[in-house]
């Protein structure tokens, strides 16, 4: 899976450069997040602006990252959700779990 990873003031910004986040590539996203946690990063911001479609495996990968970040007293937040993707979080009530921001700026400022 294509991810642009950059670090901004203690937060790792991961831009998912895929149209779909599904059972085919969500395992890879989980693995990339695990690598970051193992390097000692604890604050992740996932930018989903290019993602048109997320399935339950994609949500599962994000929940996994969220749990790992929280367990390390860090945080995993989301930004750039397209409206249909946002509906997926609402349908599964995960919008109550994740902090979700429109853009990167506000999200980064919130850490």
């Amino acid at each position, binding site marked *: 899976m294509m991810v642009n990873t950059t670090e901004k003031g203690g937060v790792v910004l991961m831009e998912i450069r895929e*149209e779909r986040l*599904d*059972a085919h590539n969500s395992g890879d996203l989980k693995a990339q997040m695990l690598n970051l946690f193992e390097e000692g990063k604890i604050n992740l911001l996932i930018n989903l602006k290019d993602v048109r479609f997320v399935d339950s495996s994609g949500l599962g990968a994000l*929940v996994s990252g969220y749990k790992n970040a929280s367990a390390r007293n860090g945080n995993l937040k989301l930004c750039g959700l397209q409206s*249909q993707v946002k509906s997926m979080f609402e*349908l*599964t009530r995960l919008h109550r779990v994740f902090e979700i921001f429109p853009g990167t700026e506000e999200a980064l400022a919130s850490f």
Partner: protein
Amino acid sequence: MNEHIEVDIKVPNQTRYLSLIGKIGEDIARTLKMYKGNREELAYQINLVLTEATTNAIRHASAESPSPHVHITISIQEQTLRIRVFDEGQGFDISNLPAPAPQSLDEHGRGVYLIRSIMDRVTYRQLDGGHVLEMEKTLG
């Protein structure tokens, strides 16, 4: 007018084909003549239920044949969208699945829940040599 569409798909049972299956579902949603609702929302929903059901067929019900495949049918007839996903596995009891707890931090267990939220009728039945998950939605 009776808009009757039938599409039957067989692909290797690998997750790399999920996007093809989902896209075909989206293409069908965007073509429907009689649908009055939000077409892009319907496209996402069909894409999603196809992706969830096919993922389950691949993950939980992989056949032991040398070149295992998944088989999916999508049909539209008289305002009914019907999707069938066939598997060759051991099956499961769909009526015994717990609904995910609200704000559950479980990584799994949202697939069938999503299918049920979107579709009007969902059944899982035994067939010769396997099972079929059948999902229907009245478009209208």
